[in-house]
């Protein structure tokens, strides 16, 4: 039975996830003895203060951020691929990440890091988060507008890439007029990193990601119907407009939260749904969606681990690692698309 086999795959992926999560706590650019790490994690307060700080204030939030971001981006990719009926859709391809980046750039470079709404002032990361969400939703709205005009899915992808370019050039312009300081911090943010969420920000970050993930799990029924295409889904009683708006808002929340905190991360959203489908063989979201969450979290943790490979010589930018894992998978999928069943 396929269901049984899928259960084993899910358990296996869960085990890999735990292993990778632990590795992210035990290994980093600074080597700390495993025994000490374990002691610190068990809550032993007699351990060396600097090590305690590194593990609890840096490695733990970083691992959590990687786990949540990986899940969020992958689910965004899966939702987009099903909604647009296109296996090459993803938050970075459709320009959604760039839209979020533009929002972030506006906040970081023009407003000096805060947005004023009436008497309320959001400052710092909240402002960045809101900027990212608005940017992502704007791009998504534009894509949605075009999706009702143009028919071919390839055309839509290219329009997404073009919208991304426009957002990019707006970002370049903002950079041109911004202060050196602002440009520098924006550039660092743009390299991508899972280290941007501090423990005090974690509740906000994890809260918005969890809301998005739960929302995606509640949308499994329309997602499965959409595998047949919109007109069939409508015939099955699915309210197309409402479902699509809910799906895209969920994608906006997930990819914008990640982008705001970790920078525009390429390829995880595009590639992980393919890894999950290739492993399971199914397009049924009942199993595919939870499995994509596990796989995405694992892949992101693996990428984060790879970033600290140079040891004490520094950290590799995240966006230098993700394409190495993601791009070969996309090429493999494209080359073998006639043999891969979910394409047919």
């Amino acid at each position, binding site marked *: *039975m*396929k269901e049984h086999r899928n259960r084993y795959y899910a358990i296996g992926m869960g085990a890999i996830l735990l292993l990778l999560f632990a590795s992210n706590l035990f290994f980093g650019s600074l080597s700390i003895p495993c025994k000490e790490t374990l002691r610190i994690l068990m809550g032993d307060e007699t351990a060396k203060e600097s090590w305690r700080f590194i593990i609890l204030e840096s490695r733990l939030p970083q691992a959590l951020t990687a786990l949540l971001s990986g899940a969020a981006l992958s689910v965004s990719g899966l939702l987009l691929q*099903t909604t647009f*009926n296109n*296996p090459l859709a993803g938050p970075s391809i459709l320009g959604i990440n760039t839209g979020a980046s533009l929002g972030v750039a506006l906040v970081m470079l023009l407003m000096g890091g805060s947005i004023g709404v009436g008497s309320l002032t959001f400052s710092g990361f909240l402002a960045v988060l809101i900027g990212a969400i608005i940017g992502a939703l704007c791009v998504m709205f534009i894509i949605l507008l075009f999706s009702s005009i143009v028919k071919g899915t390839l055309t839509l992808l290219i329009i997404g890439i073009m919208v991304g370019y426009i957002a990019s050039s707006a970002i370049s312009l903002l950079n041109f007029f911004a202060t050196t300081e602002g440009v520098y911090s924006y550039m660092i943010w743009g390299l991508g990193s899972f280290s941007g969420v501090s423990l005090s920000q974690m509740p906000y970050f994890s809260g918005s990601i969890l809301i998005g993930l739960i929302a995606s799990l*509640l949308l*499994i*029924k329309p997602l*499965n*119907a959409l*595998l*047949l*295409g919109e*007109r*069939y889904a*409508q*015939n*099955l*009683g*699915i*309210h197309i407009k409402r479902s699509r708006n809910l799906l895209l808002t969920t994608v906006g929340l997930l990819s914008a939260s990640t982008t705001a905190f970790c920078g525009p991360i390429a390829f995880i959203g595009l590639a992980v749904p393919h890894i999950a*489908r290739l492993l399971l*063989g*199914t*397009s*049924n979201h*009942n199993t595919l969606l939870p499995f994509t969450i596990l796989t995405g979290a694992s892949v992101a943790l693996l990428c984060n681990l790879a970033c600290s490979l140079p040891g004490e010589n520094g950290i590799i930018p995240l966006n230098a690692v993700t394409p190495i894992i993601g791009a070969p998978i996309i090429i493999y999928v494209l080359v073998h698309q006639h043999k891969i*069943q*979910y*394409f*047919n």
Partner: protein
Amino acid sequence: MEKEIIVSAQNLSIGYRNKGENTPIHTNLDFTLRRGELTSLLGPNGAGKSTLMRSISHLQPTLSGTITLSGKELSNYNEKELSRTIGIILTDKTQTGGLTVNELVALGRQPYTGFFGRLSKQDKVKIDSSIQAVGLSSKKEAYMAELSDGERQKAMIAKTLVQECPLILLDEPTAFLDAASRIEITQLLHEIAQKENRAILLSTHDIEQALVLSDKIWLLTQQGLTCGTPEDLVLNHQMDTLFEGKNVRFDKQRGSFSPTLGYQKQFFVTASEESLLHWGVNAINRLGIGQASTPQGHPQLQFLDKNRILYKGEDGKETTFTSFEEMTKTLAEF
């Protein structure tokens, strides 16, 4: 006993509405569909078959007039009710290769399942029996990608069956299938219409099959819609209107369209049996030679069997051919 009417339309106008302006394709359409009947919609490309299908399935608004479905006006149905009343099969591209037959058919239960789409025991029983009805029981656990085109179409039909709709609409369900699967699918639909007492409307270009297996035929041309029993339409010369102005004619004997050829010569043809006569005429037609009704003043061609064909020219000279190939080669040189 007349079968129960499920769909009826009065004075229906269909077409497109753009910025408040109506572009009707057809006006004053009247029709009915009955339970237990397979109806085939025939018409040349561009006659508006898809528009008519979409209008009946409520995927496209009508311009004026009414469609009544199970005694209630179509425009008064909400989405949920519609999903339980009309099941459709389209030519749209799907992404279902990664679903098993079971999972695909289960999608048809969505109008009945709750928020999470969980299937009850009864749902599963219905799914099983629908898969059995289309003859795919042995492939229940197979992925859609592993099926042939004909089997995929059967799975889609099973999906529509579990939707438990009294009306099923199919847009060119046999378009991409080979001859054997086309016959099989049409036969299956005919059987489903009768056994499960559903009204089935399908659009098709497969005229021969439609005339054999449909209970009713709808002919849609630029002039409008003509409905009737296949035999009535054929014998009342209605079929000839289907491709009016085109270089084809309807052959009442064969129930199919064939090219109109201008014949410069005519032969008087006789044969020892009917299929030999049919193919003999077919061969000379292709050479631009027609069939004469009397032997006077025409060359004669006598098909004794497929290896003995006797030709007698107007000058009385006789030749015997031992195969069709030899015959067509020689006649072509005349």
